[in-house]
């Protein structure tokens, strides 16, 4: 409704109608009715504190210099900055650490398998002293399994030297927890005596395993090791064996944990092994 119309109506109403009715009509016409003075009864208002001024209360400074310095640097100070950096660095370190831990756990869990382990399993072989060794003898400790042969030209001796270094590094941190195992892929030529002579040059604690061709074949199959002995070899003729070159880290349950390869230095590999050992919850046997 437009303004002149309202004023005219109001004048008309105030002249001709009794007071109560007049008011009702006014309400009808006017927007004033919305802020009617009659209110529903309410609880008495709480005595409130005097309202804070809108501007923040200023800190008082002891000296002008202090005030000036505060004005220049704003709310930042050296202490606050250091605290911020330290907190950030701490958080970063924690998250990185946790990430690495989760990564290791994931690798260990992923290879754990639900039913039968994917790598490793039962075997029956003899060591360099002619004693029978089965998977049960290795259980309770971590074991590092490597496959090779004594006539190997370059890689196996190099890798065995690396394994010896790795083993020593792990021994320093966790003595007796790791069993270093060497399995031959060439049982025709590597008997216990050959193994003993060969492994003594690398590390006196290495366990060398050999057996019949079928036992070795089963062992290699269980560890998913590829090996190929040439088939058309005349007795006494020389040959080389082609085989996979990984170190297999097995946990105290005899389950496969991780494969360590040529890309790892002995120090890196030893660190990986020790880190896995730290996360092992169940008891560990030591030699």
């Amino acid at each position, binding site marked *: 409704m437009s303004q002149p119309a309202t004023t005219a109506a109001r004048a008309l109403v105030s002249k001709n109608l009794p007071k109560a009715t007049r008011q009702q009509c006014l309400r009808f016409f006017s927007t004033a009715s919305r802020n009617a003075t009659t209110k529903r009864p309410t609880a008495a208002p709480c005595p409130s504190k005097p309202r804070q001024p809108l501007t923040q209360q200023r800190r008082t400074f002891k000296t002008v210099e202090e005030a000036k310095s505060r004005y220049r640097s704003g709310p930042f100070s050296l202490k606050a900055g250091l605290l911020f950096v330290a907190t950030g660095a701490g958080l970063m370190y924690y998250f990185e650490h946790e990430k690495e831990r989760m990564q290791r756990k994931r690798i260990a869990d992923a290879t754990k398998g639900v039913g039968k382990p994917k790598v490793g399993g039962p075997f029956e072989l003899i060591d360099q002293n002619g004693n029978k060794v089965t998977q049960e003898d290795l259980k309770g400790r971590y074991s590092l399994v490597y496959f090779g042969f004594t006539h190997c030209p370059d890689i196996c001796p190099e890798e065995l030297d690396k394994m010896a270094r790795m083993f020593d590094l792990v021994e320093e941190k966790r003595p007796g927890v790791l069993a270093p195992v060497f399995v031959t892929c060439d049982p025709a030529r590597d008997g216990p005596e050959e193994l003993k002579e060969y492994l003594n040059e690398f590390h006196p604690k290495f366990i060398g395993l050999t057996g019949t061709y079928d036992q070795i074949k089963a062992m290699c199959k269980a560890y998913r090791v590829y090996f190929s002995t040439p088939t058309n070899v005349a007795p006494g003729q020389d040959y080389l064996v082609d085989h996979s070159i990984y170190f297999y880290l097995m946990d105290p349950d005899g389950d496969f944990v991780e494969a360590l390869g040529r890309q790892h*230095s002995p120090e890196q590999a030893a660190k990986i092994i020790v880190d896995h050992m730290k996360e092992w919850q169940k008891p560990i046997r030591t030699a």
Partner: protein
Amino acid sequence: MVWPLSSSPEEKRATEIRSGAVAPTRAERQKCWESRDLYFACLDKNSIIDALKDEKAAAKACGAESKGFERDCATQWVTYFKKWRVQDIQKKARLAELEAQGANKLDVNTDFAPRT
């Protein structure tokens, strides 16, 4: 190649190693590797890659080194190392080519030198 039979135990042992009857010890392996490195250095100098394919050129240029190599290593090892050399050179060339194309380098080591 026929090796003269000799009664000396060193010569007997060397013959056994060459034929693959026994596995070499650490010292014997080391000796073989040294002779191999000498031979390969000579091949490098004469830019011969495949000693099996360019047998005549290799024999002419590195006859003395070749003799030492064959004396100190098992016959199977000699062939293996010669083949390995070809593959390793090809691999390195391929890697260099890939790197030139901007490929990312992975940490792979094919050298004989032990890593520390």
